[in-house]
């Protein structure tokens, strides 16, 4: 057991939580404004791809990340156009983005890099060196081993909380998600606010994908997000669309995953099928016992029609 419960477990848990956090907060912003975003998975994949492609062309991880954010914002724009302007079914439009992401990224690997399935290695983001921090007991080793995107992901909960609950923009955004007609009646442009929220959502999801490709492995691989966008969506619902509980839910998923990985590598005598399912079992158990009913924003999924 000593081998499992260590500071490295926490670190591994953070690494596994970060992509979920970025995508889940993307989902939260969109849904709080009244637009369901199940395109998170596809937006992550496109972000992971665009990040590696740009980093490969420019030899810069920073430019790679910027390209990923831009592509993410663009996918958000497309989703907003579908669901806010065209008022199509929000699930159908998002599904189209998910399918397009898988097909497009898989098909482009070969023409760009001349090899199928996997891109060559590109520059990655390193750990941020903080002065003196490594001398701190316990947390020093953790704080010293985080990348810029890990920090950004961990900072999202307080930042999003402040934006949502302490700024006029946040109030308008929540209004669009609860009662767009009433929000419009006080002179707020619901279409504009929803566009902003959905674009931000795509940007954050793409950052989650870029974390996998530009921080973790340094290459793009076909379908490398492996369903993390949907796990992020589950974490968002599990966290009841509220910033701090969503942070908790993502960390719970990540930590449970890190724990099962290390339980396996340390040779714990349990069937690996059971261990691999642990994060989901933990989530279900938490949901069934003390979390209680989830309450979505009242107008989520409902198109807004201007009178």
């Amino acid at each position, binding site marked *: 057991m000593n*081998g499992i419960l*260590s500071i*490295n477990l926490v670190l*591994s848990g953070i*690494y*596994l939580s970060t*992509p979920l956090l970025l995508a889940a907060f993307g989902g939260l912003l969109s849904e709080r404004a009244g637009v369901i975003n199940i395109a998170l998975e596809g937006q992550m994949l496109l972000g992971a791809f665009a990040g590696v492609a740009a980093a490969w062309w420019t030899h810069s991880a920073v430019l790679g990340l910027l390209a990923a954010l831009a592509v993410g914002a663009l996918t958000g724009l497309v989703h907003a156009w*579908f669901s806010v302007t*065209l*008022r*199509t*079914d929000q699930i*159908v*439009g998002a*599904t*189209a*983005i998910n*399918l*397009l992401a*898988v*097909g*497009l*990224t*898989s*098909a482009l690997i*070969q023409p760009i890099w001349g*090899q*199928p*399935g*996997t891109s060559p290695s590109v520059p990655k983001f390193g750990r941020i060196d903080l002065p003196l921090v490594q001398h701190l007991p316990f947390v020093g080793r953790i704080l010293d081993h985080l990348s810029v995107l890990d920090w950004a992901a961990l900072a999202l909960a307080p930042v999003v909380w402040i934006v949502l609950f302490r700024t006029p923009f946040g109030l308008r955004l929540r209004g669009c998600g609860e009662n767009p007609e009433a929000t419009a009646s006080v002179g707020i442009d619901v279409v504009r606010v929803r566009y902003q929220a959905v674009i931000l959502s795509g940007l954050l999801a793409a950052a989650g994908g870029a974390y*996998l490709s530009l921080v*973790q*492995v*340094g*290459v793009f*691989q*076909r*379908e*490398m997000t*492996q369903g993390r966008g949907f796990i992020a969506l589950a974490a968002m619902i599990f966290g009841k669309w509220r910033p701090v509980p969503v942070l908790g839910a993502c960390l719970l998923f990540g930590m449970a*995953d*890190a724990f099962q*990985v*290390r339980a*396996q*590598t*340390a*040779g714990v005598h349990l069937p*690996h*099928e059971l261990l*691999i399912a642990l994060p989901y079992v933990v989530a279900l158990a938490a949901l069934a016992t003390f979390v209680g009913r989830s309450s979505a924003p009242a107008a989520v999924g409902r198109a807004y*029609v201007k009178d």
Partner: protein
Amino acid sequence: MTPLRRRAPIAGLLVALALLAAACGSSSNSSNSADASPTTGAGKDYQWVMVTDQAGLGDQGFNDLAYAGITKSAKDLGGTGKALESSEQAQYVPNLQQAVDDGASLVVGVGFLITDAIVEVAQASPNAHFLSIDNVAADKDGTPLPNVASVTFKENEGAYLAGVIAGLTTKTNKIGFAGGLEIPPVVRFLKGFQAGLKSVNPKATVNVAYVGGFGDAAKTKELAAGYYDDGADIVFEVAGAGGLGAYEEAKARGAGHWVIGTDTCKDALAPDNFLTSATKDVSGAVEREAKAVADGSFKGGVHNLGLAEDSVGVCQKTFGSLPKTIQDAVTKATADIKSGAITVPAQ
């Protein structure tokens, strides 16, 4: 107000486009059945034809390895070699049938999913010769077809040699096994590896963990990190494309953290950390069957190829840079397995 009805077709069209892109993405070549640069050799009028699976040529895996075997057969035995690419499963039967109609001397089918198509076409054309790679083509009663050579590999024998190398390399006597899913070929790699390891280093232990899939590099990386943190100095990855994560972790930790790969030499992924690979010689298997057709000794049924046929082994490209004692131990183990002095467990 614009009626929603008028806008629904636009969305429908976009979904259709997305589906189309998804379909294109699943194959690296969308052309129906393109001839991939026929190669001509001297001698007889043989036609060596392979039908790819959806991954197509350029997959740096089975398809490319099989095509290399086709090209070499054309060069060494004469005739022409070509590949018919299938971009979707519905093209397997027409492509195989086309190869038969063109009078192919040997039709090679690559991939697990093409097996059913081979069975269908081979039963309809009993005089044609087929080769099924990595999977057994059998009729409804489970009897292997007489005109199909079904080649499977003894992954456990190559992994045994990798185990010998690991046992003589490890300093901590702790080794991690990172599998994708617990399926028969992965288990064969594991069992052979464990046997080889024990034969030279009884004190060394192997912990076993599975990622849960063959495409998750980020999680494979955390799995490797778990092993290295736990004191292991070698990780044996049988995790498909996701195996890349193990090399990333080893590279980040520096020298003394080794990775053993599968199927092909993967030294390019982490030159300082790559120890060896348990390899499968798909190209050689194709050539072997082509030769059998040429000299009239072709026989259908199951051909389970191992060390004795030089069809499995360890990465030859980096073998020479291993210490002499390890090279000798591998050579001795190879001889013992070939002579039957050692039987490598498969499960």
